[in-house]
């Protein structure tokens, strides 16, 4: 064991009460950090999960045209661009099976599915509702949006003229699995049989969206063989925006990521994160001040002892290290205990705050790597806190303190 470590441990063990005191301060600080981090990240994860539970990570939609300038900007010329509606009929994605395959194989994308979207009037008896119609391939679509898992009644299958309706729409119209509804477009009215009622956890989707087979939608929307949208799923959800921009450049199709669509949510999450970082930062500043002040007092008390160490051949750098090691040990051990306390608090909170149905309000869980980060931060904080007293100790002049 190095001499500096030996002396540092002797000092920590000799002043047990003082050591316990600063370790507790560190443990409490880290517990607050761990608890807050778990709470915020759990809350955010559940918000993001809920958001992504009813929408694709990235959609490529041929209908949404970008303003395309007619002249190039440059020199003294500025160009104003706006969309002039040129087509009565929605735009389609030409040659889509090949492009779907290319997009699915594109880096960052883990799945892609075709979709044809349009609008229709849904009629049941003499009640009508405007709805969004999506023609999908049920099998591939559910790998993008977990629709199969969201079925609350019926079976996840679209054979022939079958249709999925949302829970809120079904309640509103008083229909259920096995009932018939009609969809009306310019092309005429078509009859459908409800094979499933779904709940995607999003009221607007549950109220306004119906799903039919791709073939039925193509007939209904007078677009035989066509689709106008490709839905994709990415591996890393927070990479979606970057992947979307790249896809747009590669395909020339208007591309929107969930991040762009939910920019308000993301701004809220980000400011929530930064305020939680700010709190964690100040907690650690308080911990550092606590450790530093105790060690400063300890250096003052040990002036003569440090003088003796110096008189008997201990280098200044070793004296510095003796105090830095004390800070590091306090940070390391204090934060390890703090991780347990913080996790305990978070679990207690999770188990006491529940939804009416008994499930946790939101999930809280920690990864080992997150603990490692907390412990490293706290150890560094301990070392930084000890650096002032350590420097003070190294400056002690043996002739002045030993008599």
């Amino acid at each position: 064991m190095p001499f500096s470590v030996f002396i540092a441990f002797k000092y920590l063990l000799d002043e047990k009460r003082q050591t316990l005191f600063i370790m507790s301060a560190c443990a409490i600080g880290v517990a607050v950090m761990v608890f807050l981090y778990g709470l915020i990240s759990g809350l955010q994860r559940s918000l993001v999960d809920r958001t992504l539970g009813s929408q694709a990570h990235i959609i490529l939609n041929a209908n949404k045209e970008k303003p395309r300038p007619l002249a190039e900007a440059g020199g003294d010329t500025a160009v104003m661009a706006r969309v002039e509606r040129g087509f009565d009929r929605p735009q389609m994605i030409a040659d889509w099976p090949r492009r779907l395959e290319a997009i699915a194989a594109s880096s960052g994308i883990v799945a892609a599915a075709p979709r044809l979207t349009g609008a229709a009037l849904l009629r049941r008896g003499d009640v009508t509702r405007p709805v969004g119609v999506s023609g999908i391939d049920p099998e591939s679509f559910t790998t993008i949006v977990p629709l199969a898992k969201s079925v609350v009644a019926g079976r996840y299958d679209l054979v022939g003229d079958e249709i999925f309706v949302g829970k809120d729409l079904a309640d509103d119209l008083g229909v259920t699995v096995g009932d018939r509804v009609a969809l009306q477009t310019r092309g005429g009215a078509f009859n459908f049989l409800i094979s499933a009622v779904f709940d995607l956890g999003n009221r607007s989707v549950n109220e306004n969206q119906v799903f039919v087979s791709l073939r039925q939608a193509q007939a209904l929307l007078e677009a035989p063989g066509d689709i106008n949208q490709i839905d994709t799923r990415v591996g890393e959800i927070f990479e979606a925006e970057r992947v979307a921009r790249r896809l747009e450049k590669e395909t020339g199709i208007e591309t929107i990521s969930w991040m762009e669509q939910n920019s308000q949510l993301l701004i809220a999450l980000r400011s929530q994160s930064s305020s939680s970082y700010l709190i964690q930062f100040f907690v650690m500043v308080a911990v550092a001040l606590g450790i530093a002040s105790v060690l400063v007092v300890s250096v003052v008390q040990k002036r003569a002892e440090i003088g003796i160490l110096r008189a008997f051949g201990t280098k200044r750098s070793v004296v510095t290290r003796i105090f830095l090691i004390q800070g590091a040990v306090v940070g390391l051990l204090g934060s390890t205990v703090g991780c347990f306390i913080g996790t305990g608090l978070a679990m207690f909170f999770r188990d006491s705050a529940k939804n009416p149905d008994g499930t946790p309000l939101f999930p809280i869980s920690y990864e080992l790597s997150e603990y490692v980060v907390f412990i490293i931060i706290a150890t560094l904080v301990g070392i930084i806190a000890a650096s002032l007293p350590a420097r003070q100790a190294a400056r002690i002049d043996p002739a002045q303190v030993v008599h």
Partner: protein
Amino acid sequence: MSAILELRGVTKTYGTRIKTEVLHGIDLAVPRGDFLAITGQSGSGKTTLLNIMGLLDRPTNGTLAVNSVDTAGMDDEAITALRGRTLGFVFQFHHLLPALTVIENVMMPLMADKGRETPGMRDAAAALLKRVGLGERLNYKPDEISGGQRQRAAIARALAMKPAVILADEPTGNLDSVSSGEVFALMRELNKSDGTAFCVVTHAADIAKQCDRIVEIVDGRLV
């Protein structure tokens, strides 16, 4: 005759605004195996002189040579290493580290020199403690032994690096006359058997009389 310590024209001035010269041109040589008493009135500059001889403080003017090597140009690290290997200290107060056991206190200079405990260190420290009569107190803490025992442990610590010279500033000043006699006798015996030189600051005339040489400081000058 090779001197371990040699001071030439050493002066020491304290203070930056109001300067007081405490030592005025001290010339002093400590040969190997010497047993020197330094006496003088309180405030005459004995501790100041000993600190300079012990490389704990630097002279304002003049030179200090250790084993004929001038120390003026050395940096703090070199001075620290030289001090640790050549000099041992005993103070009026024992200054044992209270967090360490008696034997760990004696091993401290050895560990500071090597950077860690190495094989044989513990045995060497135990042997030293046995010599000073503390063979039964190795694992006691300093506050668990008597004042005379503490001062003997401090002497064992000063001996740990086998220094050429031990500087002792009133080593018996805090002890009763019996312990005081024992501690002094121990130093004499170590001087005889190992040839370790001693420079002992003392007020006690009877102790000074038993030394090989006596120098007296009067107002910062040797007489």
